């Protein structure tokens, strides 16, 4: 109230909660901005209403997006955002329900919820901000930590095979599967923008930087240096095939939309079944 808008996107932010807790140079802010820009475009086009959007988050640096955006938003325990979002979508099917979380939150502790929501083709937009580490808890190993990387729980370097979220979502039948990166914000915005229009399960992986923990631990103390190093690993492709989704720190990461199809989502099925009683 009464505060001049510093940024046109401020109307989508709980400015009273700013500044964010994110460290300087953290990629989550860039991802959030790209998402809000995409939402803003959709709203201005009349495709979405602001009050239609609901954010759901779990626990971790990334899930705090739900804390800073000014929409109906709700947070729950670590990893549990997807089932909570599922219920919201079922009882309020005209909402666009967006889940934002990190790799630990959504792919680690919440992995089981993730795979079942994809299997159901549940109409959710799930954004996994992948910084390859448990950031908020101090840099432990995550399901997406690349092999060989030092973490506080793998002091000799991780030897586990990391999870390829893109292939996972594809194999379980998600409608829209894409990978973006905070090093390519315009592309990221475009991926979000498209995703906002799709039905069924939408999985968007955002490769992000955590200079404070991930970068510091692997000797890339400087946020800019980490950002540059990551940017060099990104390969943009127009229509990448699923085989090109390989998750490989050495070879780099292909960005783009891997799956984009129009299969009926869970809510479509429910609507058919319950023609008369869907509110």
């Amino acid at each position, binding site marked *: 109230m009464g505060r001049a808008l510093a940024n046109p996107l401020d109307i989508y932010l709980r400015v009273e909660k700013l500044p964010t807790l994110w460290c300087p140079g953290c990629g989550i802010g860039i991802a959030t901005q790209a998402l809000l820009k995409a939402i803003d475009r959709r709203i201005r086009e009349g495709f979405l209403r602001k*009050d239609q959007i609901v954010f759901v988050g779990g626990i971790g640096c990334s899930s705090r997006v739900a804390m800073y955006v000014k929409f109906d*938003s709700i947070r729950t*325990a670590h990893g*549990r955002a997807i089932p*909570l979002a599922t*219920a*919201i979508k079922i*009882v309020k099917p005209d909402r666009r329900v967006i889940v934002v979380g990190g790799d630990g939150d959504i792919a680690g502790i919440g992995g*089981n919820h993730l795979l*079942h929501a994809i299997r159901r083709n549940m109409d959710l937009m799930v954004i996994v901000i992948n910084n390859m580490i448990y950031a908020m808890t101090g840099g432990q190993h995550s399901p997406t930590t690349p092999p060989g990387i030092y973490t506080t729980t793998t002091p000799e370097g991780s030897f586990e095979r990391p999870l390829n979220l893109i292939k996972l979502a594809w194999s379980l039948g998600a409608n829209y599967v894409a990978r973006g990166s905070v090093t390519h914000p315009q592309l990221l915005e475009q991926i979000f923008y498209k995703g906002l229009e799709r039905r069924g399960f939408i999985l968007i992986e955002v490769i992000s930087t955590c200079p404070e923990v991930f970068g510091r631990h692997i000797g890339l103390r400087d946020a800019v240096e980490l950002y540059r190093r990551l940017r060099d690993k990104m390969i943009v492709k127009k229509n990448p095939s699923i085989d090109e989704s390989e998750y490989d720190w050495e070879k780099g990461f292909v960005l783009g939309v891997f799956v984009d199809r129009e299969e009926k989502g869970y809510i479509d099925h429910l609507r058919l079944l319950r023609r008369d009683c869907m509110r």
Partner: protein
Amino acid sequence: MRVDYVNGNTAIAEGAITAGLRFYAGYPITPSSDIFEYLSRRLPEVGGYAIQLEDEIASINAVIGASWCCVKSMTATSGPGFSLMVEGLSIAVMTETPLVIAYVMRAGPATGVPTKTGQYDVLQAVYGFHGGLIIPVLAPSTPQEAYDLTIKAFNISEKLRTPVILLSDAVLANTFGRVVMRSAGEIEIIERKKPTKPPHLYKPYEAEEDLVPPMACIGDGYDIYVETLTHDERGVYAPTTHVQRKLMERLYKKIIERSEEIFEYRITRPSGSCDYMMISYGSTALSARVAVKELENESIRACLLTINTLYPINEKALRKLCEESSMVFVVENNLGLYYREIRGVIRDKPVISIPVIDLEIPDPNEIKRMVRKWVEH
């Protein structure tokens, strides 16, 4: 009003629908599953949803999500499933989310005897979740009580913005009885309090005199933010002793100060005078009722106090009820768990635990035998 002949689980499901239940999420587990199966058929008839999720963790979170859309929501489970739910239950306590969990106990620990009964989880129901606050726990002992207390559970949860546990057991789940069912117009159904202030003046965790903040839901135009971290009245995370103290005290007080209103019991006096007071709950109270009646023939004048509200206990009322008795027996189908709670309230006379470990309905003869032993001392 209509009268039906149903088992405890069906009575719970019907009570929930009468109370306004429109969303159920669950994961199958004996002996609670037929609540879920019944609601899968019944809820769509009234415009509601019953969905099966991948586990109990998902179920409780879904119930929280639906409740934040201002839809009355519940789940049902048993011991192992409840263990998985306690994480979400704590979230519901902190975020003041109205919901009901029907907890149908079976014999534990671990996977125990899934199809058989026990009251081993009575303390887990209230103390199981992290954070050390209190939630109301109601325990029916007959199908009629199951129906009535389910409605009461929803009413308390809506009024006080709290999760409520309805603690049943395997015997009650399968016991049939005559149940008088009401339509919503015939009984009081409480709806949650909505904000009257416009969004820019509304503080989501600003309580009114009843210590309960009005609740704006998803879709009400308030841009709600549901915070699981320690928060001030605006819902802003505030890790200070002052804010923590204020919040914890309010969350605790809004329940504990309602003890009188929440506390429910039934007293059976076969011979009028209560030389001894037998306290029981759940299906074990049915056996205890037989025992007090038969003890009268041996001139042991005992009364039965069936406690329907296990938490919070109205301590004043409980002391008064036990006033004229020289001894108090607590009969339960476990090693004497709730006995400790009673002993904490009644301190001026002997309180004796009568643990009946029985996989079937506890045997009244065994209860009588143990009472005799103490009375003849």
